[in-house]
């Protein structure tokens, strides 16, 4: 498989008046063609920050403090903004932002909004562009007449499809989806998930799927990257994380146990006590140590490195050293 994205030791810090927030600290992962990589974790763990960092749009006052983002071997971090705007953003990497479907301009038709995005990047005749838009609306399961509709005339699911089509029609190398189904009802969520699977299969697309819901990742992601406090805690294939053996990092274990299962009646659901740490002053040693149920002495002293414990399965936990 072709490696289309390589993130190497990415560091993204927020330099605030209160101190340096290490939003992303030494994050490395790859994305292959035709694969969906799931980014999962609690709010504030750095999922969305990773997404915007890949788009070369770090949220202010974020700054790249090291590492590389290689798209097809080219590092996009040192590129001038003009170049990024012209050749990278939306051309190579597209993103469906969280709540993007509610950010469609209410006063323009869907067609006009999509046309604008398209014409900003492509020198195209209006008819030709409209033809392309109609084609992509078809791909996401919407009739072409949606072009003439205003956002308020569409349901949530339809708007999300429009947003996905808009992310796709410049044929980016991969698409980042940030919580694309969170605001949707379960049935519509399942429809969107099915759509993404179909698109992936048909066009050999690559996705980075960001969500806080492990159950969703089990549905869509080939590989899952579990993030905690700006670092990767565990990275493994779908089978490694959700299979019989189960995850290896205590955080992933706990997160999975806290995910409610409809078809299993339990007397009491488990949860992770406490809250994620303050990233200005994270705990010494392993950042998960105050909440970990399997904590050892070493965890308070030294930070565990991300190590491959079996092929394709990386875990950052001292417990696996033995």
């Amino acid at each position: 498989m072709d490696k289309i994205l390589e993130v190497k030791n990415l560091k993204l810090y927020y330099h605030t008046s209160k101190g340096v927030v290490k939003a992303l600290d030494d994050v490395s992962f790859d994305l292959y063609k035709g694969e969906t990589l799931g980014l999962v974790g609690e709010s504030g763990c750095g999922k969305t920050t990773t997404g915007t960092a890949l788009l070369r749009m770090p949220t202010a006052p974020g700054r790249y403090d090291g590492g590389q983002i290689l798209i097809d071997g080219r590092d996009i971090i040192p590129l001038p903004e003009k170049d990024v705007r012209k050749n990278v953003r939306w051309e190579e990497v597209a993103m469906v932002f969280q709540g993007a479907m509610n950010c469609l301009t209410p006063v323009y038709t869907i067609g006009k909004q999509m046309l604008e995005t398209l014409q900003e990047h492509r020198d195209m005749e209006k008819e030709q562009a409209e033809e392309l838009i109609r084609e992509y609306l078809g791909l996401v399961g919407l009739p072409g007449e949606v072009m003439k509709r205003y956002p308020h005339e569409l349901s949530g699911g339809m708007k999300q499809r429009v947003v996905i089509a808009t992310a796709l029609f410049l044929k980016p190398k991969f698409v980042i989806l940030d919580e694309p189904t969170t605001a949707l009802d379960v049935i519509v969520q399942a429809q969107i998930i099915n759509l993404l699977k179909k698109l992936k299969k048909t066009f050999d697309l690559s996705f980075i799927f960001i969500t806080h819901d492990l159950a969703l990742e089990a549905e869509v992601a080939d590989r899952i990257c579990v993030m905690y406090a700006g670092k990767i805690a565990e990275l493994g294939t779908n089978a490694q994380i959700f299979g019989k053996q189960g995850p290896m990092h205590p955080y992933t274990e706990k997160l999975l146990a806290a995910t409610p299962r409809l078809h299993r009646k339990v007397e009491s659901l488990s949860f992770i006590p406490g809250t994620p740490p303050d990233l200005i002053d994270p705990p010494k040693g392993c950042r998960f140590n105050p909440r970990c149920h399997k904590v050892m002495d070493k965890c308070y002293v030294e930070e565990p490195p991300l190590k491959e414990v079996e092929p394709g399965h990386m875990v950052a936990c001292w417990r696996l050293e033995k």
Partner: protein
Amino acid sequence: MSENKNPEVLLKVENLKKHFTPHMGLAASLGKARKVVKAVDGISFDIKKGEIFALIGESGSGKTTTGKLVMKLIEPTSGTMIFDGEDVTSIAKKQLEAYRRKVQMIFQDPYASMNPRFKIRDVLEEPLSIHRIEGDRARHDEMIVKALEEVKITPPEEFMTRFPHMLSGGQRQRVATARTLILNPKMLVADEPVSMIDLSTRAEILHMMKDVQRDLGLTYLYITHDLSTARYFADRIAVMYLGRIVEMGPADMIIDKPLHPYTKALIDAVPEPESGKVDVIKELPISGEIPSPANIPAGCRFHTRCPYATDECKTLPEPELEDIGGGHMHACRRWKEI
């Protein structure tokens, strides 16, 4: 199950309806006929003392409107509501005040349900001053501390001087619960109390709410779109679709043996954290999205999306809830065949 021990009905809702007539400008009202939005269109249910009753539905199903009707934040179009033996459908100001002491509400968004300029102490004192609960500042402080301890906010004194924005989502939802408990209510309406809270701490809040319910013998109306937490949390579940209850019964029965095709579809759509599904495209028995409550289909209102709908379903009057035993009720004509 608690309802067996104490079968007394606390809240009885009968054929409750809420129709909204949209407020239009003069020009618009000349041009178009006003479309009535039938948010809640004739629902009946009982909630027994000490029970957790879940109302499940997608957005637009009318579950939140039902919650507001029960809270008497809005007036019903028709139907009756009997609370603790008293008809509360339309009550005078004095009785409403008394009713508000007995029925309290927890809102979905713990970030928005507290005035950002109030400290936690002020947030919790507000119900006391609204209802002119006797006592000086020290007595009020005592009650506030007790309520905070009840929801496991410790140490309470330290939290009292904080502002809501200094608390995590889970802590806020605890404070919101404490605010409702301070008046010793009989029933709590909880509208999606955990949907905005991180998955990792969601269970913690649900545990806390359940503990409080057991400790104080409370009754909950739990409004949610999330079947998984409803199964864990509730004794009974009612599934709403477009302003009607389509299926109702004990939680396990609804989840394990759903009768209505809509309930089945909902259950099928819930993702489970298990491997081996990435390349499988899930069979979804129903397509499309919930129609607008301003434009409810004739006949069975689910027929437009139902894979089993026949001509009968489209033409005959809407099926009523039917009990098949064990308190399991459904509103589907073809339940036996499917």
